[in-house]
C-alpha cells in the first residue's frame, strides 16, 4: 500500500463533511418556480367564482394591457394577509384578475366581502387545473401577464408591502 493511501479515508471524510455542512448551512429554498414564465398563458375558460364579477378565460388576459393574475383561495390564510397590498396595487393602476382555487361561490363572496375585492374578473378553478397548467405550486401566487397574454413574472407567496413596487415595475416592463 502506498503511503498517501492512508490519508484517503480522512480526505473522503472531510469532503463529505464539507458537502453536508454546506447543505445544512445554506438557507432552505423550497420555492418551485413556474417554467411557464416567458410562455403564453394556457388556453382555458373558467366559470365565475363570485356573484358580482364576470368569469375568466385566457382571452381576457390578452387585451393589449399588462395585467396581474392572482391565484388565491378563500380558505387560504396568507391570501387574506395580502389583500391590502392587492388594493394598493389596484390603486396604483394595476388591472387584477384572479382565479379561486378549489373554492365555492358563497365562500368566495364571503372572503371578498370581508377582505375587499380588487379583482376585475374571477375564475373558479375547482380542480386546480389552471393552477397546474400555469406551473403554480400553491396559493397565493401572482403572475404578471403582458398585453399579448404572455406570462412575464411570477411572485410566489403573499405580496408584502415591500413587494408592491417590484410588481409595479414588472408591470411597467411588460407594457
Amino acid at each position, binding site marked *: 500500500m502506498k503511503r498517501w493511501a492512508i490519508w484517503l479515508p480522512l480526505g473522503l471524510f472531510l469532503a463529505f463533511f464539507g458537502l453536508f455542512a454546506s447543505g445544512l448551512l445554506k438557507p432552505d429554498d*423550497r420555492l*418551485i*418556480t*413556474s*417554467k*411557464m414564465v416567458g410562455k403564453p398563458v394556457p388556453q382555458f375558460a373558467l366559470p365565475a367564482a363570485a356573484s358580482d364579477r364576470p368569469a375568466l378565460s385566457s382571452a381576457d388576459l390578452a387585451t393589449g394591457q399588462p395585467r396581474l393574475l392572482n391565484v388565491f*383561495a378563500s*380558505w387560504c*390564510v396568507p391570501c387574506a394577509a395580502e389583500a391590502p397590498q392587492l388594493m394598493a396595487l389596484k390603486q396604483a393602476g394595476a388591472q387584477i384578475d384572479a382565479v379561486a*382555487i*378549489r*373554492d*365555492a361561490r358563497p*365562500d368566495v363572496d364571503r372572503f371578498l366581502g370581508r377582505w375587499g375585492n380588487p379583482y376585475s374578473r374571477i375564475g373558479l378553478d*375547482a*380542480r*386546480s*387545473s389552471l*393552477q*397546474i*397548467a*400555469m*406551473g403554480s*405550486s*400553491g396559493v397565493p401566487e401572482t403572475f404578471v401577464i403582458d398585453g399579448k397574454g404572455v406570462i412575464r413574472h411570477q411572485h410566489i407567496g403573499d405580496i408584502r408591502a415591500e413587494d408592491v413596487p417590484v410588481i409595479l415595475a414588472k408591470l411597467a416592463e411588460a407594457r
Partner: protein
Amino acid sequence: MTVRGLIALILLVLATPLVAQTALPPAPYADRQLDDPRLEAKARDLMLTIRCLTCQSQSIADSNASMAGDMRSQIRERIAAGEEPEAIRTWLIDRYGDWVSYEPTAAPILWPLWAAPVLLLGLGFVLMRGRIRRRKGKV
C-alpha cells in the same frame, strides 16, 4: 378523568385545524381507481414518480394534500382518455421543471449519477485484480 379534562378533550376533538385545506370534496378520480386495471397500473406507475408540490418529499400517490389529489385525478382522467404517461410527465416538467419528476433524466448534471456504478465497478475490479496478483505472488 376530571370533568374539566373531559371538556378540554371534547373541545380538542371538535376544533378545526387553523391552516385548513379546502372544504371542497376531492376531485372524482383523486381517490378512486380507474375501472380498467391496465390503465390504472399505468396511472399508478406515473403517480408514484411525480413529486407532490405541497409536501415536497412525497409522491402524489402518497400525499393527502388537496393539490396532489387534483393531480392524481387529472392524471387518471388523461390516461383514461388515451394519453401516454411519458407525455403527461413531459407536460408536467414543462411547467414545474425536472423537480416534479422522481425519474432521473439524461441531463448533463446527472451524468456523474449514471457514471458512478461504472466507476465503482471498475474500481472494484482493479482492487480485486491487485489482491489476486498479490496472493499468487505469495504462493
